[in-house]
């Protein structure tokens, strides 16, 4: 009996997945629940366990290919139920003809060859062109894209290094383009005096880290104040869907985490119901697991608003791109000590710029301003919690 392995649905919003690597090859034995392959959806790598025990008979989707959810990936010839022992050995399984799969990589279709000749492209040129066909095949469209790029002078020259996008970069690229094309972004910036929080943090950080086993950074304060400001401004805790807006009941705050390979945004669920220490612990846990690549697809979904802490890179201001389908994203600049006029005096305060990019289809500057004012008031009027 053959068992079919299909691209799984990893969370509601995911429509496709990329095969990163087969851990078992055709002809290899696999046990039930043993890791069969790794896939990538929404930028997260997940190991897929085998749905049954048997021999991997056919692999349809090769490493690096992206297919819709539900697409057959492989078949496994299930182990026959135990058969009574007899003197004769079981017949050898029929030898499956190897799937014609290596055909594609070092093989050019007639259309590709004819076009290459017509355009005077040498085999060495063809090797440089980005391939998008199945099994890494060079398609006619790839050559046309290359030619178009060459005409605009963007083709790599000798000595340049050409690095194809990884699945993660592709996902980021696709999302960024889609977000910019979908939502007209506008960015509003407000200056926040973080002195009270900075002083509290300086005073408490050692004790806090000991008691809660997580560092006391600026982030939990910002998330707490953001969640509170979102409560009063539901249009920023919303999803834009076509010609309607869905005001989300839950406040789930995405936290942008930069990795060498790209950006991942784990989501702190129901942030408005959490105490400062809980926010610190949970966000620390999410960020750590992103870095260790142990985050699950469910944990990067359902975000209703996103914060992006720019301070670690020393950035003062930025105009962040919205995570679709959310309506706002907050970029927080570095907290720096600056001379500030207070009353009639110039004093040194710990200041930061809070940059809100919002979807101008859904809200206008007034709502953005109102949200930023509330956020500012929450942070500047910080009352130390009784710990």
């Amino acid at each position: 009996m053959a068992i079919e392995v299909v691209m799984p649905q990893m969370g509601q919003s995911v429509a496709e997945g990329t095969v990163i690597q087969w851990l078992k090859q055709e002809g290899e034995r696999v046990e039930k629940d043993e890791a069969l392959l790794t896939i990538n959806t929404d930028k997260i790598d997940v190991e897929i366990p085998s749905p049954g025990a048997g021999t991997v008979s056919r692999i349809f989707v090769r490493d690096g290919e992206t297919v819709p959810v539900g697409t057959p990936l492989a078949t496994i010839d299930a182990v026959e139920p135990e058969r009574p022992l007899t003197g004769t050995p079981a017949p050898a399984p029929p030898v499956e003809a190897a799937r014609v799969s290596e055909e594609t990589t070092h093989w050019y279709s007639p259309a590709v060859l004819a076009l290459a000749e017509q355009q005077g492209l040498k085999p060495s040129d063809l090797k440089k062109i980005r391939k998008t066909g199945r099994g890494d095949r060079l398609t006619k469209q790839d050559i046309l894209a290359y030619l178009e790029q060459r005409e605009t002078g963007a083709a790599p020259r000798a000595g340049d290094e050409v690095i194809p996008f990884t699945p993660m970069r592709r996902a980021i690229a696709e999302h960024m383009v889609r977000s910019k094309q979908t939502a007209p972004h506008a960015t509003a910036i407000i200056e926040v005096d973080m002195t009270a929080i900075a002083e509290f943090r300086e005073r408490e950080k050692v004790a806090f880290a000991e008691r809660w086993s997580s560092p006391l950074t600026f982030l939990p304060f910002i998330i707490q104040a953001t969640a509170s400001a979102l409560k009063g401004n539901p249009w920023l805790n919303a999803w834009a869907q076509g010609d309607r807006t869905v005001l989300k009941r839950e406040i789930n705050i995405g936290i942008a985490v930069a990795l060498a390979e790209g950006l991942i945004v784990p989501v702190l669920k129901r942030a408005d119901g959490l105490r400062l220490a809980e926010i610190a612990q949970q966000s620390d846990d999410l960020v750590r697991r992103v870095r260790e690549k142990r985050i699950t697809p469910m944990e990067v979904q359902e975000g209703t608003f996103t914060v992006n802490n720019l301070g670690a890179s020393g950035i003062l201001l930025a105009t962040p791109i919205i995570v679709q389908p959310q309506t706002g994203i907050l970029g927080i600049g570095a907290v720096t000590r600056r001379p500030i006029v207070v009353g009639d005096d110039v004093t040194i305060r710990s200041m930061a710029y809070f940059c809100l990019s919002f979807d101008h289809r859904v809200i206008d500057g007034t709502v953005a301003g109102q949200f930023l004012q509330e956020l500012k008031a929450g942070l500047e009027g910080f009352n130390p919690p009784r710990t």
Partner: protein
Amino acid sequence: MAEMTYLEAIRQALWEEMDQDDRVFLLGEDIGTYGGAFKITQGFLDKFGEDRVIDTPLAESGFVGAAIGAALVGMRPVVEMQFADFISCAFDQIVNMAAKHHYRLGEPVPMVIRAPYGGRLHAGPFHSQCPEAWFIHSPGLKVVAPATPYDAKGLLKASIRDLNPVIYCEHKYLYRHAKGEVPIDDYVLPLGEADIKREGTDIALITYGAMVQQALEAADEMSQQGIEVEVVDLRTLCPLDTDAILASVKKTGKVLIVHEAPQVCGIGAEIAGVIAQEAFHYLDAPVTRLAAPHTPVPFSPPLEDFYLPNATKIAAKLKDLASY
């Protein structure tokens, strides 16, 4: 122009041709008093009389032979097969007499055999077949298979006026499922010319008959994913419009051929052969076919659904080709 069904368009073509040309007359089983199994010739007996609307015995070979004789003495007979499936009873008359007479003796045989064909009506193995390939394979015949009311009327009138024997394949599912704007006055469409039912740049989808609707539906779905499919409706299967086929293949580099008849030795095989020979250097993917399996048409509705190509199956093949 008026909106009408495929069935009404065929009926109008027959009526108009009979009205304006005394040489045109009808033969078939139950076409007179009963008005035909599908009621296409209802009212014809009253209007044109029993000399021109002839109820025949259940003897296909006999009445096709009679039609050939009439054509040879200057008449324009239009024969109705009650179901295309029964056309095999007249096979010898069609492929040995009608198809070869002009070649042997220099006398044309201007006649039309209307063949209500195709499945999707849960009518079982004797009332659902697609016999077109048998006749394409017999030199001397023309084979026509329209997909829309507009094409059905224009092509039937052209078939009746043509000097060759024409097998006119009218799809039974389309009789009442295809509607469209049709001129209420006289017009003919040329035999042997395909029609691009939808322009596209990425994949050429070559088909005809009831599969055109399904192809257009699948092409709409693909368009939402950014894949533009060109739907080529052959309209005439013999002579085949190879120019239109090759132009579409050269434009796109990928081909899907769809028909409802079994895949083995179907018209798709011929089209694939022409493409391989004439457009090899333009191909960017294997020429792909989607057709019925090599079995009789099943009676059971779920089995028939499984058997016949449809929009969902076409879309799956298109996705596969797009990603190749």
